[in-house]
């Protein structure tokens, strides 16, 4: 992306929007169109320095969020339930921040069930769980195109065997980057 072409409209947009966080370079400026003729190089020189700082800050945030969610990629569920429990609210919020910060990021939410019951009905239950997590994210502003809810039903257990200990580990949604 060329700083000289977008710096001026974006700085203007930032001022208009009253943004206090880093400028989002991959979002179109709300008032300017992209076909605006580029500003003369002398005028842009004075604005390059602050824009460069903002860009560096955005990249750091992206990496920061990615690191923060590294070990927070599974949501577990109670038996026969697709309710996203309160204890997972911080996890969901973290993922929402990450996705909102980088609109080019897309994720697959993979729903699973424990081994009990029919394959197709469990496929649908896993789908319900994945969609529940997706909804939690979209309610926090994440775009619908950024999350795809899919299901593996009981076909891909995380823990083998029977009994509540294994079953509890299998009733889950995994949040994976595409």
């Amino acid at each position, binding site marked *: 992306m060329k700083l000289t072409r977008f710096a001026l409209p974006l700085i203007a947009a930032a001022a208009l929007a009253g943004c206090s966080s880093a400028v989002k370079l991959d979002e179109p400026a709300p008032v300017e169109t992209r076909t605006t003729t580029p500003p003369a190089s002398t005028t842009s020189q004075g604005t390059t320095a602050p824009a460069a700082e903002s860009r560096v800050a955005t990249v750091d945030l992206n990496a920061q969020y990615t690191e923060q969610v590294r070990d927070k990629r599974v949501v577990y569920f109670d038996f026969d339930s697709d309710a996203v429990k309160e204890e997972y609210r911080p996890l969901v919020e973290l993922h929402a921040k990450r996705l909102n910060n980088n609109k080019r990021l897309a994720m697959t939410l993979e729903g699973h069930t424990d081994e009990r019951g*029919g394959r*197709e*009905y469990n496929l649908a239950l896993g789908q319900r769980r994945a969609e529940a997590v997706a909804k939690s994210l979209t309610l926090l502003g994440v775009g619908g195109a950024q999350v795809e*809810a*899919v*299901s*593996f039903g009981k076909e891909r257990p995380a823990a083998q065997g029977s009994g509540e200990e294994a079953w509890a580990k299998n009733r889950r949604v995994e949040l994976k980057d595409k």
Partner: protein
Amino acid sequence: MLEPLVSVSRRRTLAALAALGAGPALAQLRIDIAGVGGTRVPVAIVDFRDESKSPQPIAAIVRADLERSGLFRSVDAPAGLSETSVPVWTDWRARQADALAAGSVSRLADGRLDIRFKLWDVVKGAEVVGEAHAVQPDDARLAAHRIADTIYQKLTGDRGVFATRMAYVTKAGRRFSLVIADADGEGAKVALASPEPIISPAWAPNGRELAYVSFESGKATVRIQDVQTGGRRVLADFKGTNSAPAWSPDGQQLAISLSREGGTQLFVINRDGSGLRRIAQSGAIDTEACYSPDGSKIYFVSDRGGSPQVYRMPASGGSAERVTFGGNYNISPAVSPDGRTLAYISRIGGAFRLSVMDLGTGQAQQISDANDDESPSFAPNGRLIVYASRAGGKEVLMTTTLDGKIKTPLLVTLAEVREPTWGPFTRQ
């Protein structure tokens, strides 16, 4: 080990079918008869004259087919008779045979086998039927099954299913295979090998294609595969999960479950992938569609009432009526070919059990006392149901009569087996 017909990891289609060998690394399907009930009709099947000209032992296959049905038992049948003989009735009555069959095998000038047989009613002392089958040597086994079908039909009045095939899925470690085998478990061929799960195989009514759900692309998509050539195509790969294919009786469209509009809902799609249309709207899970044999209705599973039950609605969509009422978990509907019986899985006290319902009276009956029954499928003569169950800690396939009285386990020695589906009468 020979190549499977299609291997997902290799991403290429092989032109020839490959047979599963009997090697230690592969699953072997063997039939085991246990728990036979009722009186079995004694039949004498004489080894066919010049049977060694056939690559397959015709009489032995016929005997095994008839015994496996649970309705017949073989009596001693010394060699020496063929279809041209005149049986000595006193001899056969002394052997306690009610029916007698004998035949011969000869080679035709063009290399084909001429397999002939006659069936006699020993009690009446009269001929019942005689047939001649001209087949390529490779089809000797199929000819034997067709002879068993004829004998079965003449003696019971029902069409035999010995010449039909089944498809099922095996799992060995992280390797999944979609397998097609004869109804006696022989001739198993791997139609698809994949490192990802395969579920819900469904035969096209003409027996030429199989639809199934594959997870090879990282999520559930519905595919259709030509049984003969192995050629595959994607039928449904929409956003989210695509599953539960069910062919309409005329083979022109399939009902499928899609999550593309949120939730799991029922759609119908033409067999070529065109004409997608949604046929039900519920805020619940709607899945496992199954057409009635006359194509006018679709049975399906829905938890719109709070728990999964079997419902029925017009095939083009419309208001649904609930069909199952016992218990709070009824899934996996299958309708008999005459449209009169529903087979399904019912959770009773934590155990998942095969059940049947008379659709005329609504009378339901649990016909299994196992704990983990799945995916019932009717034989095309409506006399048997094949289903997946668990015995001795292993997944196995079982066939049962509709009253649950005669059950025959099909043992798989090495792999887990699940998702059986019985093929149609027409064998291409």
